[in-house]
């Protein structure tokens, strides 16, 4: 392909985007130093709770989906062959 790589797909841009993302992650956690969070249940008011919980919940769901996939995934034409 001769066309020039789109600026958004250049590896330099992607590296740069990762840096910005890391900064944002740090910023939203540090923001909590200034803004106390009053949770409903105590634990959800802890420093960085939502960050850790969001991350771990997602990792858990991906792993669970992966596990379920072992049992429930079938080839795409599964329903077409059996009829």
């Amino acid at each position, binding site marked *: *392909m001769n066309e020039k790589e*789109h600026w*958004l*797909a250049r590896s330099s841009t992607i590296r740069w985007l990762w840096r910005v*993302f890391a900064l*944002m*992650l740090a910023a*939203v*956690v540090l*923001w*909590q130093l200034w*803004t*106390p*969070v*009053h949770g*409903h*249940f105590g634990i*959800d008011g802890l420093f*960085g*709770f*939502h*960050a*850790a*919980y*969001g*991350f771990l*919940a*997602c*990792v*858990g*769901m*991906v*792993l*669970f*989906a*992966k596990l*379920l*996939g072992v049992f*429930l*995934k*079938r*080839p*795409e034409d*599964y*329903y077409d062959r*059996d*009829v």
Partner: protein
Amino acid sequence: MFEIILPPAFFLIFGAILVAIVRPALRPVVALLAPLVTLYAIWQVEDGVRLAVSFLGYEVQLVEGGPLRRLFATIFALMAFGGVIFSLRDAKWWELSAALAYAAGAVGVSFAGDLIVMFVFWEFMALFSTVVIWSGGTEAARRAGIRYVIMHLVGGIVLKIGIEGLMIHTGSVEIRALSLESFDTWMILIGLLVNAAAPPISAWLPDAYPESTPTGGVWLSAFTTKTAVLALILLFPGTELLIYVGLWMIFYGIIYALLENDMRRILSYSIVNQVGFMVCGVGIGTEMALNGAAAHAFTHILYKALLFMSAGAVLAATGKRKCSDLGGLFRTMPLTTLCGVIGALSISAFPLTSGFVSKSLIVQAAGDEHLLWVWFLLVAASAGVFLHAGIKFPWFVFFQKDSGLRPPEAPWNMRIAMIFFAALCLLIGLFPALLYRLLPYPVDYIPYTQEHVLTQLQLLLFAGLAFFVMLPWMKRTLTITLDTDWFWRVAASRLYRIIERLANALRARLEQGAKDAVASLSARLMRSHGAEGVLARTWPTGSMLLWSVSFLLVLVVIGARMSAG
């Protein structure tokens, strides 16, 4: 007593009929006007029962107004308007006509004053949504449509059993809050939950919707499940069971979407997920939660239609539907990408988008009621929404690898529809009061507090981090995932075949047994009655005479002895 007005749904029905019969050049005009006139009519309906007619000895209430009903009817009409803009170049006349009739059913249910009217429009939706699915035109669409319509007609029968039971046992078909204390109300609840795509039959939705045309999917995403949510709010507010049903739907949607490769099936699972939030809100049942369920239905229709529009535009331009075939489309479809991303951010409830101001009401209600586990699960699911729909959909369709596809940008009408809905998503996100004013109960809630924005951003951005960290695990595979529909698509036919085989074996056995019995009987008959049988032999007449004389002799002797005695 009642002012004479036409039910707003009738305008859409007229529109649907006109679209089918007018000249092609006039079709877009009629199709665009019908939802607008309907929208005007919707806002003329005042609170209370406005139109009742006598039908089979019953007074049926065709139109009953109210803030909740107006809210749902409004979004249905808006949706129809946006849907027409999106579809008017590509959709065939029958698809457009059926889609308008389908929307009419949803508007009709919104204003239904009693269960009879609700049921009639409910079935109206089932029929015309099936036509929209069949408009997909493929063999897969035909089969999926048949499965879909069977499911909905069976659900309709269950609903009807409940309504008739209630009519007989209580004498009233008023729409009011019911409690789960009788068989009738259980039947009604089950009938409603079929349309809400609740477990265990959620599979009808991701089975059927992705088989529609690129434009049909946009319509299908909006009406059926959200009218079910409205009916649940009206009939079963605060039913605790719905909390668990909703939570199940939420996680079912996330997990199955994570495993899915077809882009519109990802979005379909995500409908089940989002409707789960609403059902959960109905189950919590406080004013805040019911407001949340209604608000979320409103915003959801906008961003889900927007997501289906961007997916439809991609499908129309590339003819491809699998994530594994797509990617890198942002190069040539920048506007579709941007609108898809806005839809994705909205469904993820990012601050400044519509999802943020509506979903928060439900989560806040769970917190206010101190429902510890419900709250924790809802928050985890909010992160999961970003994972499966918020990032996964746009990432795999528009970014990830360069698929080499260079499709043209979507045509002008699709662009206008997407911009319209994206703008509405942002407008509600920026000015939540616009939506809050329409909710059934007064809203005493401010979504934009530092605390709330902060916690939501932490949750979502770290969910995003999890996505990219786990990306190797999310690699798309050319697979489908088994669901409960396996039971009726495979197990049922296998069971049928087993029964058939057993029945055949039994029949063969019986047949053989009968043959054997006949054979042995005939052999026995042959032995006695056959040519050589004892009973068939010829006897000489002489022996007959001999025997007769002997008998006579014996009789004479006996007679003589008796008279002598």
